[in-house]
């Protein structure tokens, strides 16, 4: 990915706040100019006092005071404006990212249940505030100031301006080299760190086994070795960056000495009419400008991390949904014709066939990991790697309860509706079906009570029933439930099943469960399918 392209989405977000970054830039420029002015004017004043006979003290005196105060105020406001801007851009970008993320295939979405992936994501988004604060804005400010210097110095002598031009170009080249190296370093370091992280997590997850098998020393030795390697790689990459910083220091200091020398020549030359005070002013202005330039390497060392973070964030979005081959059946039934599901190229169970109509229940029974969930995913059009034909009553009109209980840190109402328009009566009715109505009525704010980590803690079984209720709030011709009763007592599960049998006469209910209630097996409206090995 080329350098500017990686940052394009961010620039678009910045553009939405044009006036703010323009203001921030102007304030930064003002700060810098005041800083340079303070030093240069002070130098002029001191030299004039030492050499001239009469000096108007009021103008330079107030000028110095003005620069000192304005610099402080401008800097303060500038930092506020720029940080506020960055927060707004981040917020905007977070939403844009989430929108694109939603378009993923369902397998991609599940990956973010892992804390690691989320940590990495938030880390990358935070790294992006470097883009404006440490990369773009300092560079803009320094470039603008250098242009001002070129103009100003050219009033004195072309050589002075020439020195600034040459130094500026040299600095530009060195900084771009630095940015390039910092990206190489960031990539390498990320690879090494990933290795240690993976090994570390493997160790902590299997720590008991490792200790029992007395393998701890061997495993920790390996991690120690990688740790040493990582630090060595880190140092090596930093060396290049530091050499560039050294060259830049020599370049800019040399420029200052050069400017000093030319200024003195101008002073000595009777034709030039440059006073001694102006010599010192030029010297100190050059010193202040050089200090500015030397801030750039430290800021631009962040380029690598930032570009990498941006790359990672964009990569998360390139997967698109796999097209699933589920069709609509002619007679509003659920049909499986010799369907078997594959994980990569491995067939998970012997092909099965089925036909079910409204009011019938299909129970899939098999131990965990044998392909039940995958078959349900395929039926819902979320998974494409299957053989045979699947036909559903109506495409995209189904209720799905995932095996993993998805609960938001939010109110009960939001958890149930997820933004859908549903009337409260229906909600309470469904809550009665899963025997949660009483519990929720007891809550201080009932449906508007917060649950989850920050709110009321419910038991695992209660969360599960809540998720089940969510899946039943709307009528649909096909209801898919993946292990709906996991974590529930057997008699509670049986009661809920009884109720649902009566309340869902128009739906085909497809249930995956490793435990099928005994009362169901003999029922004629229930089909039990055991997934067999192939």
């Amino acid at each position, binding site marked *: 990915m080329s350098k500017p392209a990686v940052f394009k989405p961010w620039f678009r977000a910045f553009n939405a706040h044009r006036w703010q970054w323009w203001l921030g830039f102007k304030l930064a420029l003002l700060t810098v100019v005041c800083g340079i002015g303070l030093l240069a004017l002070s130098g002029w004043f001191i030299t004039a006092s030492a050499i001239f006979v009469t000096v108007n003290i009021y103008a330079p005196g107030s000028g110095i005071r003005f620069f000192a105060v304005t610099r*402080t105020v401008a800097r303060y406001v500038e930092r506020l404006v720029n940080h506020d801007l960055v*927060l707004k851009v981040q917020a905007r970008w977070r*939403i844009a990212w989430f929108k694109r993320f939603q378009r993923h295939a369902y397998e991609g979405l599940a990956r973010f249940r892992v804390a690691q992936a989320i940590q990495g994501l938030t880390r990358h988004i935070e790294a992006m505030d470097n883009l404006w604060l440490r990369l773009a804005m300092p560079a803009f400010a320094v470039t603008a100031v250098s242009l001002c210097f070129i103009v100003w110095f050219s009033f004195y002598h072309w050589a002075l301006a020439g020195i600034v031009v040459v130094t500026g170009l040299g600095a530009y080249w060195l900084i771009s080299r630095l940015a390039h190296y910092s990206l190489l370093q960031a990539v390498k370091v990320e690879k090494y760190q990933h290795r240690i992280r993976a090994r570390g997590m493997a160790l902590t997850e299997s720590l008991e086994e490792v200790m029992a098998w007395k393998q701890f020393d061997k495993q920790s030795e390996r991690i120690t070795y990688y740790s040493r390697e990582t630090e060595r790689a880190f140092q090596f990459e930093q060396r290049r960056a530091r050499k560039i910083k050294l060259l830049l220091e020599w370049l800019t200091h040399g420029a200052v000495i050069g400017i000093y020398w030319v200024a003195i020549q101008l002073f000595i030359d009777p034709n030039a009419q440059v006073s001694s005070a102006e010599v010192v002013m030029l010297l100190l202005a050059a010193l202040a400008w050089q200090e500015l330039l030397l801030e750039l390497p430290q800021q631009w060392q962040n380029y690598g991390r930032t570009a990498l973070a941006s790359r990672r964030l964009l990569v998360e979005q390139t997967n698109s949904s796999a097209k699933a081959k589920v069709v609509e059946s002619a007679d509003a039934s659920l049909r499986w014709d010799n369907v078997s599901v594959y994980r990569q190229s491995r067939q998970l169970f012997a092909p099965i066939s089925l036909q079910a109509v409204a009011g019938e229940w299909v129970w899939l029974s098999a131990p965990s990991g044998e392909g039940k969930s995958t078959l349900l995913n395929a039926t819902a059009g979320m998974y494409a790697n299957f053989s045979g034909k699947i036909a559903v009553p109506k495409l995209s009109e189904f209720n799905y309860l995932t095996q993993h209980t998805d609960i938001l840190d939010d109110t009960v109402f939001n958890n149930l509706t997820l933004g859908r328009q549903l009337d409260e009566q229906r909600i309470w009715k469904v809550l009665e079906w899963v025997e949660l109505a009483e519990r929720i009525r007891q809550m201080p704010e009932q449906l508007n009570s917060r649950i989850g980590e920050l709110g009321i803690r419910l038991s695992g079984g209660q969360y599960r029933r809540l998720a089940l209720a969510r899946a039943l709030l709307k009528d649909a011709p096909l209801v898919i439930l993946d292990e709906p009763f996991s974590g529930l007592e057997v008699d509670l599960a049986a009661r809920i099943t009884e109720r649902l049998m009566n309340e869902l006469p128009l739906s085909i209910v497809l249930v995956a469960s490793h435990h099928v209630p005994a009362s169901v097996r003999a029922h004629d409206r229930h089909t039990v399918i055991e997934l067999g090995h192939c």
Partner: protein
Amino acid sequence: MSDNFRSAANYLKQIQTVAQRSTRRALLFGVLQTSSVILQLYLGAQLAHRLLVLKEPLSDLTLYWLLLAFATCARAIMGWRRELWQSEAAGLALHNARQRLLRRWQSQCRQGQSIDRGDGSMLIDTVEQLRGYYERYFVQQYLTVLSPLMILVVCFWLNPVVGVLLLISGPIIPLFMALVGIGAERVSQKHAQSSVALSRVFTSMLKNATSIKLFNGLQFANNTIAQAGEDYRRANMKTLKLAFLSSAVLEFFSSVAIAAVALYVGFGLLGYINWLGADELTLFSGLLVLMLAPEYFAPLRQFAQTYHDRAAAMGAATLLTENNPQDVQADVAMTAPGHCLATQNLQVTITPNARLPYPDFTFPKGALTVISGPSGSGKSTLLRALLGLQSYQGTVLRANDGDQPIAYFSQQPFLLPASIRTNLFLYSDDPSVDPQPVLRRVGLDKAIAVAASGLDTMLGERGAGLSGGEQRRLALARCLLSSYPLIILDEPTENLDAESADVIRRELGDLCKSGRTVIVASHDEALIALADHRIELDGGGSYV
């Protein structure tokens, strides 16, 4: 709270000891760097004075120009070397931190403290937070005193009034910053809360993305994230307003000090002030003092910038400090032949205040012992004590070869996202053994032969690619491949398909026939029926 603080600070100090040599060198070069700066500015001021005031010819001053060039080169080189040593110090310190973390996990495991799966990433994520501290803050805190001190001495030599001015403004600035900082602390706590809230909302939306997508809740999710983002921004800006205020104080005082120096020197040179050495001011001394003033404040500014390195490191250190390691029981080798293990007066520590007592047990050699009992009766806890993974009081006696590794089959056997072969030999010291006979015995040979690359087929996270039964059989194969005399298993047949469970039961029986001792915790009736010895726990524990 302050206990935490102290132990974190101690931790940081201890980690640093390996990097002392590098730190000292960095300090040395830092001091040399400041000396070069002083020399450089001295020569610049001398040149100005001699050329502009004394009007000496340029040719007489070539030496000054050369020395100026030399001092400039030296300054850059000293800075370069200093950063090199700082960086190396950080590398050594972080490596040390990682090693200590590994040792801490080992001792935590021995005491039976559970370690979260995600803790493994602390090796990178938490330890990296220390880098800024050791690379920048640690040396900077000394240089922030040394460099200004050197400059102060020079300034006093040039002009006492300026010296006093700088001396006063030096300490005043941190004082004012601290006052502002105290207010910032309170606000930053609020900010930390809203930061956590935003992270929580975002994380929640990500984790539940499947359901959100299934129920077309995208708009709802976006609105929630947007709202949380806005709250975060507001809280963040409140904190920043105060945080920036403290650094604005620094900027203000340093700018004012420079302005004051300039005005004082100017008025002194003009003759408006003639007390306390003002009449001795020359262009040289005045200019030098003016150029030194920003250099006086520069380390302080750098120090302020690195302060959040310290905060991050303290945060990391509280996570990394070791708790007081308790002494782990050393076992007495036992003498009774025919027994592989035995317990005496065993009381296993569950929480610091609660211990679970067990009656005395013996585990005969070469026999299959099944520990059974209702859930919660302490089967797993007993196993963990036998494995040395939980602290206890009393004794666990082992046979003479008792320091051998134990082939352990845990409730959730660990599988790496690597090849099947790697997983088979995960805990083995001898990867050259042919696994085929063992695979045939556990019935995995066909499944592996059919797989894409046979033994080299890559598994996914948590063994994805093998069914639950196959994963357990692979873990059993691990135990069979090893030759350790003791095998301990925790619920090996739970939630398993009938075929896999049969294989496991059969193999466990065979293992004993070949002379190895097998201890199993299980409520599987069929397995209990195969047992040579049976231990029934019922909360009170009794031997059957």
